[in-house]
C-alpha cells in the first residue's frame, strides 16, 4: 500500500519533471532606442524538443536568440532556464552561457586557431577540462559533424559548410543543455546547406534541445516539434509542424509561407 503510493508519487514527480520546460520565456520586451524589436514574446520549450522560429527579416528572431543567452539585456519579461530565473542576471551572464550553445550566421570561428583548437578553447579555459580529455572530446565531435580529417586545418582552409560544422562542434564541446542556431545556413552556398542542416537534424533527433532560426522551410518541417512564427516583434503563431504546414494557421503566417515557397 505504502509502496504503491510511493510509486505513484514517484511517477507524478517524473511527469512533473517532464512538464517543467527547460526554457520558459514570458512577456519578453526589448527596444533599441525608440524601436521596439520584441513585443510581449512568450513561449516554452521542453527538454529534448526543437522549436524552429521563422518570420520575415527584422521580425526580431535573432534578437530573441541573443536575449535568451543574455547577450542582450531585456527591458521587460522573464526568462527561466533550467529552473533558474536568468533574466536580470546579465552581470553573471557568462555562467548562464556556459550551458547554452550558440551557432552564428557567419560561423565566427576564431581565425588564429585550428579547427580543433577552436573546439578545445572554451572547455579548457572555461570548464577547466584537462587538455588531453578536451582533445579526445573535440576529435569525437569532429567525427560527429563528419569532418574528422580537418582537425588541424585553419578556418580559412575550410569551406563554409565545414566551418559551420566546426562551429557546431565548438558549441557542443561545452556540453550545453540548449542549442541556439541563428540562421545557420544563410551565409552558405546552396550545395553546402544540406550538410549543415543534416548535422543539426541529427542532433535534434538525438534529443538536443534546440531553438533554430531559419528560412529553410523543408528543414523546419522535418526538424521542428513546434514552429514559432514571428512578425513585427510578436509571436503571431505557435503550432506543430504538421498543423503549420497543413495550412491551419494565421493568415499572415500563411502569406509568409506562400512567399517563401514560391
Amino acid at each position: 500500500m505504502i509502496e504503491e503510493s510511493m510509486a505513484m508519487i514517484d511517477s507524478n514527480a517524473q511527469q512533473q519533471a517532464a512538464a517543467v520546460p527547460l526554457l520558459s520565456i514570458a512577456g519578453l520586451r526589448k527596444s533599441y532606442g525608440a524601436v521596439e524589436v520584441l513585443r510581449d514574446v512568450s513561449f516554452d520549450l521542453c527538454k529534448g524538443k526543437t522549436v524552429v522560429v521563422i518570420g520575415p527579416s527584422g521580425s526580431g528572431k535573432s534578437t530573441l536568440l541573443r536575449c535568451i543567452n543574455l547577450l542582450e539585456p531585456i527591458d521587460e519579461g522573464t526568462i527561466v532556464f533550467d529552473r533558474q530565473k536568468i533574466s536580470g542576471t546579465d552581470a553573471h551572464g557568462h555562467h548562464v552561457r556556459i550551458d547554452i550553445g550558440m551557432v552564428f550566421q557567419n560561423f565566427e570561428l576564431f581565425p588564429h586557431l585550428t579547427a580543433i583548437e577552436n573546439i578545445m578553447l572554451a572547455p579548457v579555459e572555461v570548464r577547466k577540462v584537462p587538455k588531453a580529455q578536451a582533445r579526445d572530446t573535440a576529435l569525437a565531435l569532429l567525427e560527429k559533424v563528419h569532418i574528422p580529417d580537418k582537425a588541424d586545418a585553419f578556418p580559412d582552409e575550410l569551406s563554409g559548410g565545414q566551418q559551420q560544422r566546426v562551429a557546431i562542434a565548438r558549441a557542443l564541446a561545452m556540453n550545453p543543455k540548449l542549442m541556439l542556431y541563428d540562421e545557420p545556413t544563410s551565409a552558405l552556398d546552396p550545395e553546402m546547406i544540406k550538410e549543415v542542416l543534416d548535422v543539426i537534424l541529427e542532433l535534434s533527433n538525438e534529443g538536443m534541445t534546440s531553438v533554430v532560426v531559419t528560412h529553410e522551410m523543408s528543414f523546419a518541417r522535418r526538424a521542428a516539434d513546434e514552429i514559432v512564427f514571428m512578425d513585427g516583434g510578436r509571436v503571431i503563431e505557435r503550432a506543430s509542424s504538421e498543423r503549420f504546414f497543413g495550412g491551419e494557421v494565421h493568415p499572415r503566417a500563411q502569406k509568409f509561407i506562400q512567399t517563401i515557397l514560391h
Partner: protein
Amino acid sequence: MTRGEYFFHYLVSVAFVKGAGMTLLITITSLLIGMGVGLILALGQGSRFGAMRSLTLTYLWLFRGTPVLFQLIFVFNVLPAFGIVLSGFASAVLALGLNEGAYMAEIMRSGIQAVGRGQRTAGRALGMTEWKVMRFIVLPQAFRIIIPPIGNQFIGMLKLSALVSVIAVQDLLLIANQTASANFRYLEALGAAGIYYLVLTTIFMAVQGRVERWANRRGRRGTMQPRSLTQRLIAWTSGQVAIR
C-alpha cells in the same frame, strides 16, 4: 693612420660595439615598456568607466603634447628633486617608454578594434568572461594585425634612442661624438656609427619579415601581403612613424 684605417679601427673597437649594444638595449627595453603602457592605455580608452577614460586622455595629452626630448631631460633632471634618483639608462628607458606608450596606444586600439564584434560575441557565447575574450580571442588576433606598425615603431625607436646622448647615456651616438671630439675625426667616427645604425635597422627589417610570415601562417591569410625591402623603406618614410 689613413682615413680608412681610422674608420675601420672605430668600426671594430670595443667602445663602438658597446655603444651599439647600449642603443639596442635601450630600443628594446623602451619598446617593451611602450607596448605595456600602450596596451593599458588602449584598454583604458575602451573602458566602461569615465574616470579611466579621462585618465587615459590626460596621459595622451601630456605625452603627445610635449617633445620627447623635453620628457627625457625632465625625467633625468626633475625627478631627483622629488627624491627619485634614476641612472641615466633608467631615465632613458622610462622617458622613451612612457612616450612610446602614448603612440603605441593608438596602434593597440586600432588593432583591438579591427577584431570584429562577432568574434567577441562568439567568445561570450561560449561562456567566457570579458577578460577571457580579450586574452584568448581579441588580443592574439590584434597582435597579428599590429605586427607591421610595431615593426615601424621599433625602427623609429632605434633612431629616437640617439636622443639619450643628451643625458650622458653611453649610446652609439655619444660614443662616436666623444671619440671624434678627441681628434676631430668626425667623418670616420660618425661613419662607423652610421654603419651600425644601418646594420641594426636592416636586421630589424629581416626579423619583422619573418614574424609577419609566421603570423600569416597562423591563420588570417591574405590580410598581410608580404612586403619587399623597397616597400618597407617607403613605409618608414611615408609618415607612418609619428613625429615627436
